[in-house]
């Protein structure tokens, strides 16, 4: 069944994803992501 107010659903999803981002940032996950992406990934290259 289609919801009568689809914009509400979209806004809720956007807010939920922003909350996840903020929570991740508070847990220092930006830095974890940065370090992992910056170190050369030998699996991606295919040698380990």
């Amino acid at each position, binding site marked *: 069944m289609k919801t009568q107010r*689809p*914009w509400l*659903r*979209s*806004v809720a*999803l*956007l807010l*939920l*994803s*922003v*909350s*996840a*981002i*903020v*929570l*991740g*940032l508070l*847990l220092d*996950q*930006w*830095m*974890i*992501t*940065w370090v*992992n*992406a*910056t170190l*050369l*990934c*030998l*699996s*991606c*290259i*295919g*040698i*380990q």
Partner: protein
Amino acid sequence: MKRLFNLLLRIRRWPVQLASFLVMNSYFTQGVTKGLPCPGFNCYACPTAIFACPVGSLQHFVIIREIPFYVLGVVAFVGALGGRAACGWLCPFGFLQELMYKLPLPKWQLPPRLGWLRYVFIAILVVAIPYITLEPWFCKLCPQGTLEAGIPQIFLLPELRALIGWLYGLKIAILVAFLAWMAVSKRPFCRWVCPLGAIWSPFNPVSAVRLEVDHQTCIECNRCQQVCPVNIRIHENADAIECVRCLECVRVCPVDCIHITGV
């Protein structure tokens, strides 16, 4: 809003895809921007990549046993805005597959409805095996990693050449197989393998920007399916999870029955 959607229809897609590839691999901001997951499948081990690959990052969080709130949040935000629009407009690997399909070779239609295989790849190669082995096994087999990192890094860093073994050979074989497959089938990696596309798929029916079809007007000429990069009949289901929101069907519909709609 309507005016914005009409403007979208006037923008040609390939220059946007090319620009996205160039921006994602623009090198100079690496030191600052590599903590941001990119809206597409672009390897972070590529010498010029400026963003983090979401799939590689997700595996890393599985390995360190942390829930990836930040990476999933960024991916979900992109999905909540436009569903799989990043697949249609921004992803370099999607762009490569469309370019390869333009080669004048005999074509082979993929059987539909095997998209669930992507969730098997997520469960096994992105979550279960990395969790158990502490190694990013999707990366070890990933053809985009071979293309953007495996081949260039071996040229740039001669000291790595001594480490080449069976895994490197396997990765090259997988890449060659996918390149051949892309030349004969529309976006095979996107439709059967890609974990990122699989995560974005469920957002198609609920994203802020969506498609809608006026069934009264549709004459079922199938022009939409002919131009569709993932070969679907959007007139049967405007919320199809396979749709990459490229808008090619909207452009070609002779009776103008496919529309962009939004919040």
